[in-house]
């Protein structure tokens, strides 16, 4: 019962940071949603805003760590090309093999069914669109840290922050879903 280094990094990138991202998003969203004049007291608002700041900053930091580990650590293993131009190294395989057939080679070779679009559409979209998430999450973190309790009396700004926050999550969800699907078909080993 063990994992290779590559599998560990895949887990850290997808499950570890992904889970933390999800928790931070849920906490941040609940905090932003409930920041309404009729739901807060003078005593409670300071603690509530402090908690909100922790949530949105954690989500932004997690989003950055996720795209950085994904792009600079896991993705290079995905896109190696040991199989050659004709993908001969993938012949007869049912999953990728680090020494002869990378996940990208495996998907493009079609040796295990019609898998080309997992790369041409799924991976191509995932690897790019994911980077919009930390940018938008950082914008929301800035708004919350900068404006603080003012979000309670400026409801339009609060609603704008919620929309950007959900958008940041949505882009990460697209990337995360395709990451999970592609890992199912062609895991980084």
């Amino acid at each position, binding site marked *: 019962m063990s994992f290779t280094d590559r599998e560990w990094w895949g887990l850290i990138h997808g499950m570890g940071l992904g889970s933390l991202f999800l928790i931070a998003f849920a906490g941040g969203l609940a905090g932003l949603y409930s920041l309404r004049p009729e739901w807060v007291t*003078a005593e409670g608002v300071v603690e509530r805003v402090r908690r909100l700041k922790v949530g949105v900053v954690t989500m932004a930091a997690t989003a950055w760590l996720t795209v950085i580990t994904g*792009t600079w650590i896991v993705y290079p293993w995905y896109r190696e090309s040991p199989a050659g131009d004709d993908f001969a190294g993938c012949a007869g395989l049912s999953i990728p093999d680090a020494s002869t057939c990378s996940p990208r080679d495996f998907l493009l070779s079609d040796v295990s069914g019609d898998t080309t679009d997992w790369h041409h559409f799924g991976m191509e*979209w995932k690897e790019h669109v994911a*980077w*919009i998430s930390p940018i938008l999450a950082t914008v929301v973190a*800035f708004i919350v840290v900068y404006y603080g309790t*003012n979000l309670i*009396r*400026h409801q339009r700004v609060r609603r704008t922050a919620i929309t950007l926050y959900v958008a940041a999550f949505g882009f990460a969800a697209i990337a995360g879903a395709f990451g999970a699907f592609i890992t199912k078909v062609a895991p980084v080993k």
Partner: protein
Amino acid sequence: MTDNTPEVHEQLRGIEFADKPEGPIAAAIVAGGVGAAALGLFTTLAEASTDIKDWLNWNDDVGPLSGKTIMAVIVWLVAWAILHAIYRGKPYETRRAFTIALVLVGLGVLGTFPTFFQAFTAD
């Protein structure tokens, strides 16, 4: 612009608010859109031109994605710094900034959508 109905005013009594202009928020929101649009632009340009793709190949292991993402982050941060300097003391409302950002993010998503950028693939 604050929500100034009598009920809200009463409910907010006792809460301390720092007086801060909305300009820096608008600047951050627009800059976020600029960053997303830049990512879409570099993604599409790299597909359309092998010269640009090669130029963006800043790291052989990561490939052109390295240059696309680093350039998008640089454009975003530079745009944020400039917009922040312009709007930091101004009561610029976020409504218009948000609309601009939504359009820019939409362009960013379009530029990173494979069916779109692969239509420009260089021969």
